[in-house]
């Protein structure tokens, strides 16, 4: 932890990628009181020496590293810091906030063995709870109750799937919920002989188990441990500012957030977005004004989130014709379209900036219809409303976004994590080839950010960039060659682009005089490695507001 309050420190780096067109690449950056004082060569800050105490310290600790602006995660959730209270049971390797690598579990037997080992650390009778599991990746027999009975017969064992819509549990957990062969419940999957096989589908059916074991991810996300875990997770992947994109922000939580983010060793600037849909627009607008006043450097209040539909892979996204390729019925509105429109118009008129969750193309269309009417009735410059996820927008919708001054934050990580599923099982080939159409956004001049939606996919800007640049899926498909973007554009989307969607682009997102000294400290040069290796670049840590945090 460096961070000198006064004096000037000039950091030398192997390379500094600034995102500032006036000085795109530099070798040195000068920091004073947590802000960037100068950028350029070794003597970039000399002209300021007299004004700021006469002394310029030179620090070459980053001489082997590449610095970029601290990455900005435009769409994530604090819950990403809470999941680690439970055991990780996913297919891909994942690193926890403390840097411990949780190796991927690639078969039902591996899950069994991994959890049996994990259970050894628990007190007798304590349940074994795991998360992140995704049967889509396993070629072995589908995970069932019998595998988990081998983890334990005496403790409840619960494996939450990565989409949070399914769980697989052992016999003890089934017994706890009173589920047996006579239970008449659609979401309780069975073996061919009629006995429950341990897989529980949808929240209604999972709820009795969760209640009895006290599993509450959202409550966990409100603890100090989760906030700290979230910040450490972000630091490990070079993120210095992240949203927590949907929060009720009750007074108790707010006090906690202010205290925790205010600690001198807190690594992250957090931008929570207030639930903007439950309360009437006037109430929301009033709350936004109150919240803004309480903003601090590391807790930026005043953003608002609305929800239009559900998720595509969960078949709850609202799709236009011809719908889901499986013939699955159309998804669900999270907010009635009429109410969504009314709220968007009212919040727009009240001067609020909105982040609007839209996954399916029918949802993005409904949001655009509402925004169009809002602009017609209450014209506003630079409102900077953002369509979040917006995974299925077509060319016409991007043209409308451009015309209406709407930004887009595309869920590029989906291309890798769910791309094959979308191609084969949700929207079908044509629409899957243009999913998260970063190329179209840029072609139409729509301000672009890209994101992870952690914990839905792991936070990792370089992985998100890799997705947007390569558009590869696990099966080896290139999901829409023409939507690939350059590394430079991807880096922009993860720094200045995302900062722009948060109206923070005057303060963060590039390395230039007057901005926060927020850097990602990289072990390789993203503009020089092969695009296919972008995601393999190591992150040594971050500097946030002039304070250094190393992995």
């Amino acid at each position, binding site marked *: 932890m460096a961070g000198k309050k006064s004096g000037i420190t000039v950091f030398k780096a192997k390379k500094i990628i600034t995102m500032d067109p006036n000085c795109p690449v530099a070798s040195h950056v000068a920091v004073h009181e947590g802000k960037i004082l100068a950028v350029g060569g070794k003597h970039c800050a000399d002209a300021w020496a007299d004004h700021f105490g006469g002394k310029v310290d030179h620090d070459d600790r980053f001489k082997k590293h590449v610095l970029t602006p601290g990455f900005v995660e435009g769409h994530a959730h604090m819950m990403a810091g809470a999941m680690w209270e439970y055991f990780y049971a996913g297919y891909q390797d994942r690193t926890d906030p403390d840097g411990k690598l949780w190796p991927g579990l690639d078969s039902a037997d591996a899950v069994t063995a991994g959890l049996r080992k994990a259970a050894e650390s628990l007190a007798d009778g304590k349940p074994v709870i795991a998360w992140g599991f995704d049967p889509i990746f396993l070629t072995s027999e589908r995970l069932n109750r019998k595998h988990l009975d081998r983890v334990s017969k005496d403790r409840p064992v619960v494996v939450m799937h990565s989409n949070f819509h399914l769980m697989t549990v052992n016999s003890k957990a089934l017994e706890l919920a009173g589920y047996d062969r006579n239970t*008449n419940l659609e979401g309780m999957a069975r073996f061919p002989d009629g006995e429950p096989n341990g897989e529980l589908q949808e929240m*209604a059916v999972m709820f009795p188990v969760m209640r009895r074991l006290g599993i509450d991810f959202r409550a966990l996300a409100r603890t100090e441990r989760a906030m700290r875990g979230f910040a450490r997770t972000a630091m490990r992947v070079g993120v210095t500012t992240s949203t927590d994109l949907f929060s009720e922000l009750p007074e108790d939580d707010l006090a906690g957030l202010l205290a925790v983010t205010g600690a001198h060793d807190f690594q992250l600037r957090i931008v929570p977005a207030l639930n903007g849909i439950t309360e009437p627009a006037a109430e929301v607008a009033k709350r936004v004004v109150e919240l803004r006043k309480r903003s601090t450097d590391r807790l930026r209040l005043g953003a608002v989130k609305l929800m239009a539909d559900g998720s595509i892979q969960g078949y709850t996204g609202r799709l236009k014709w011809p719908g889901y390729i499986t013939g699955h019925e159309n998804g669900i509105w999270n907010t009635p379209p009429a109410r969504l429109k009314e709220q968007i118009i009212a919040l727009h008129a009240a001067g609020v900036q909105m982040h609007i969750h839209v996954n399916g193309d029918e949802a993005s269309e*409904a949001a655009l219809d509402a925004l169009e009417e809002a602009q017609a009735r209450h014209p506003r410059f630079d409102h900077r409303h953002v369509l979040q996820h917006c995974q299925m927008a077509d060319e016409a919708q991007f043209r409308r976004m451009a015309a209406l001054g709407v930004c887009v934050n595309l869920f590029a990580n989906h291309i890798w994590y769910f791309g094959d599923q979308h191609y084969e099982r949700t929207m079908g080939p044509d629409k899957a080839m243009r999913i998260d159409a970063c190329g179209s956004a840029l072609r139409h001049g729509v301000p672009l950010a890209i994101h992870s939606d952690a914990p839905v996919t792991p936070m990792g800007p370089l992985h998100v960039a890799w997705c947007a640049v390569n558009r590869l899926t696990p099966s080896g498909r290139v999901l829409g060659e023409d939507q690939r973007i350059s590394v430079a554009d991807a880096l922009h989307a993860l720094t200045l682009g995302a900062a722009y969607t948060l109206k923070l682009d005057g303060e963060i997102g590039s390395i230039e005089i007057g901005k926060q000294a927020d850097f990602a400290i990289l072990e390789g040069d993203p503009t020089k490695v092969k695009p296919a290796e972008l995601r393999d670049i190591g992150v040594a840590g971050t500097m946030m507001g002039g304070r250094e945090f190393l992995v």
Partner: protein
Amino acid sequence: MAGLQKPPPLPVSVISGYLGAGKTTLVNRLLAGGHGQRIMVLVNDFGEIALDESLIESRDDDIIALANGCMCCQIGGDLYDAIDKILGRRTSLDHLLIETSGVADPSKIGQIAIAEPDLQLRAIVTLVDVQNFLDGVADPLLSDTLERQVRGAHALLLTKIGTHEDDKTGDVAIRIAEMAAEKPLFRDEDQVLAMLLDANDDPSFVTKNLNGNKAQKLGVHSVPFESWNWQGETAVSRVCLEAFLNRNELQVFRAKGQLLLADGSAVVVHKVGKQVEITRLQREILTSRLVCIGLRGKFSRSYVEEAWQRCLGASG
């Protein structure tokens, strides 16, 4: 017998319907009514509920308690949290009534009550605003949402009848019959209130209590249900019982009973719409009882009686 017996599951009813269908009006009447039942109503937002301040006994951020024993709880962020909280503080409630959001699929909400052992689903009622329904089903953004609300219901209530000169009640009734022909379709809110209030009672109330206190207090004069009762010592086989309860042509809207099974065990039976629940009873019973109710005109006591006798015969 152990002193600490698990309380019976809390009956749950779900009130669904699109924006403006009249859910809140119905809920307000139930909350204010002098029906003597302790009903907990879960609403999306207190703001919509018009409670007479003089009736309010206490209130905190999420729960308002009324002098008549009813309570109203605001869902806030998450329905599950709210239900968990209610079950946690469950002090002598007779009935939990969930008012859904305007776009919810009520059958999904009903699933919660079916899955949770401490809850028992009694009825899903969808309210249909006759003035706006046809426009809604013609709107491609909305049609499937409205259809799910109709199909997911056990019974439907038409609202805002006669509020406009150009009354569309007839057309709406035809359209609903196309979507859900077999479901009871009410035009009178009182009848739905009576049905909901009965949720914790013997389903035969509809005939027994037709002129009773509860119904009268609500001004309900005719209830379109009939019931069939049976009591006996004959055991029934599980297979035959399931087949009987799943026979749609019997037009049983609701069934409730405690029955001796041929294998010597005893079960509690609940049916509403097509949802059948058979759960093991943890104590012994000597006599079996079963009540079935159905819509007058569609439901035939003698037909049900005959089917049941055949069921008992086949069980032997």
